[in-house]
């Protein structure tokens, strides 16, 4: 029974994490070809006798040589960082307000904060498109307020992309922060007030430092998936928003260069997993 308990997750991780990574690594070192699949097998048996290894490092060389990939990667990291900060700025006050609401209100309020998350992802993005396009409500309101020149729309701008990402990932920031805040002993804030701290000082010296584990978790939970985010930049962002997710998609489906796409994907995975593993070990 105990062995089964360890075996099951191990098998799951093997099938869903390790195996795909091995396949990706195999493709990334193969040579592109015109067949289906569009790469040559690593071992060429056609010569008879011992197989010939046909590995190629072309994809990796191009990855380093062409600044295009590095630029996309840096751009994605920036987007993810700004989105994570945005989620924090919106999510922290939200989580704090829910924590301090009367007991009976907390569960319903939390539910409301998470509710959008349960509707279809693409549905929500399409709703944003409707709101942000030139004759959409949001753009119209900005036109009326004189904040957006007429004839322009929010859609297909960085602002629209950030709005979409922050809205989509907000629950990932709210949940860990709320979990942390709701577990803080309310007596701590009372003790701070009792010892003469103003509400602001009590927050800055007691509540905020004690909620930092939740803040870090929230930042990581938004940042990591946002780096590889493909759909939102594609649908809401401008054409100049060349994110690493978009690059991978283009290499796979537009250029049909699977080895190149795999190499970029592997770099992205390594970039996200290594720091996470280091953080885990540091604990």
């Amino acid at each position, binding site marked *: 029974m105990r062995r089964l308990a360890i075996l099951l997750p191990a098998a799951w991780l093997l099938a869903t994490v390790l195996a795909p990574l091995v396949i990706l690594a195999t493709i990334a070192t193969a040579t592109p070809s015109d067949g289906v699949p569009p790469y040559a097998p690593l071992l060429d048996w056609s010569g008879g006798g011992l197989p010939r290894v046909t590995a190629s490092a072309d994809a990796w060389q191009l990855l380093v040589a062409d600044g295009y990939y590095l630029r996309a990667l840096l751009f994605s990291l920036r987007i993810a960082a700004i989105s994570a900060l945005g989620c924090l700025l919106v999510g922290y006050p939200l989580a704090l307000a829910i924590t301090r609401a009367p007991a009976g209100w907390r569960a319903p309020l939390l539910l409301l904060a998470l509710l959008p998350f349960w509707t279809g992802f693409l549905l929500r993005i399409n709703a944003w498109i409707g709101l942000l396009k030139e004759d959409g409500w949001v753009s119209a309101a900005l036109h009326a307020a004189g904040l957006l020149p007429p004839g322009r729309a929010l859609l297909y701008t960085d602002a629209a992309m950030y709005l979409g990402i922050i809205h989509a990932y907000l629950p990932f920031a709210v949940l860990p922060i709320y979990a942390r805040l709701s577990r803080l*002993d309310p*007596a*701590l804030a*009372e*003790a*701070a*007030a*009792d*010892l*003469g*701290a*103003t*509400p602001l*000082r*009590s927050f800055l*010296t*007691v509540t905020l*430092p*004690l909620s930092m584990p939740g803040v870090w978790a929230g930042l990581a939970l938004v940042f990591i998936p946002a780096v590889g985010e493909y759909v939102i930049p594609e649908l809401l962002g401008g054409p100049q928003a060349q994110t690493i997710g978009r690059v991978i998609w283009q290499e796979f489906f537009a250029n049909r260069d699977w080895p190149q796409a795999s190499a970029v994907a592997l770099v992205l995975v390594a970039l996200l997993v290594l720091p996470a593993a280091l953080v885990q070990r540091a604990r």
Partner: protein
Amino acid sequence: MGALQGRALTAAPPLLDVRGLRVAYGPTMALNALDLSVEAGELFVLLGGSGSGKTTLLRTIAGFLRPAAGSIRLRGEPIDALPPHRRPVNTMFQSYALFPHMSVADNIAFGLRSAGLGRRARAARVAEMLDLVQLGGFGRRRPQELSGGQQQRVALARSLAPRPALLLLDEPLSALDPSLRDATRSELMRVQQLLGTTFILVTHDQEEALTMATRIGVMQDGRLAQSGPPAEVYERPGSRFVAEFLGAANILRATVEAASNAGTTLDVAGVGRVQARAAPFRTGASCLLGLRPERLRIGTNATIGGNQASGTLASSAYAGDTLRHTVQLANGASLRVAEPLASGIRGHHLREGTAVTVSWERDACILLPP
């Protein structure tokens, strides 16, 4: 009473004066027109069961709860309108509520920072407080690295550091091992006497209340049922509730046969005639007779003090320092008797089912309103 009134006219107002305090939790009244007055330098103990409102009272004085009516004055100044952080009152929390991300020294310095003390003055006061609670050298530790008793002392030092006019202690000993409580009790009293700070301490432990308090206030249903020095409240409880809550008491129905300044003669159901102290009951009035188990003597015929009751020994239980007997009276009522075991268990000879006589002195009678 006359002396008290005279002082009220000439001397300064009491340190804490609570009048007509009402606090509501929804439809229920947690505090119901409560009056309380505490003099400077007192160690006032609020004693009550759960739900009696004692913690509510403490939290209202600290400012965490808003009263629906009534006033709270500190040295004559109303503090009702002040938020907790502006009240010169500190609380020692039941859970201690030490800041886990700060060192012991930073915990103690927290209130000093709010008070605007400079770095040097803070360091000096922290060192002084650490010495006071005998934790010198522990300043750099984190609270979670300390034992429960040490954490308790840090909490005490932290709440006393800003030199509050009044310290509120919410069950300060309840989180400690019973073995630590005795020592900590005297430690609290030592610190209180040394600093002269006024303490209001909440507890449900009657021994704690009796041994520590300069005055005890017994809480019942959101009011102060009785307050006074421990011996007075224990010896002369004003109601059946107080008599039974503070210590144990047998309660018997009685009628006043004769009442004079010399004493009261009672006719007690199941017992017969009983002589008691003079009491404010008229002849013919019905009342209750309270008898503390440890003030009763039991034997086959021995009597002390003149009052006695006959019955059958229903049961005896060994409780270490005493034998706890239950004696069945003729009318079916029962009396609990605690017999001190001065010479151990061996000399004991009473058997269950034998006829016994319970006797007590006149002054052991507690007369209570019905």
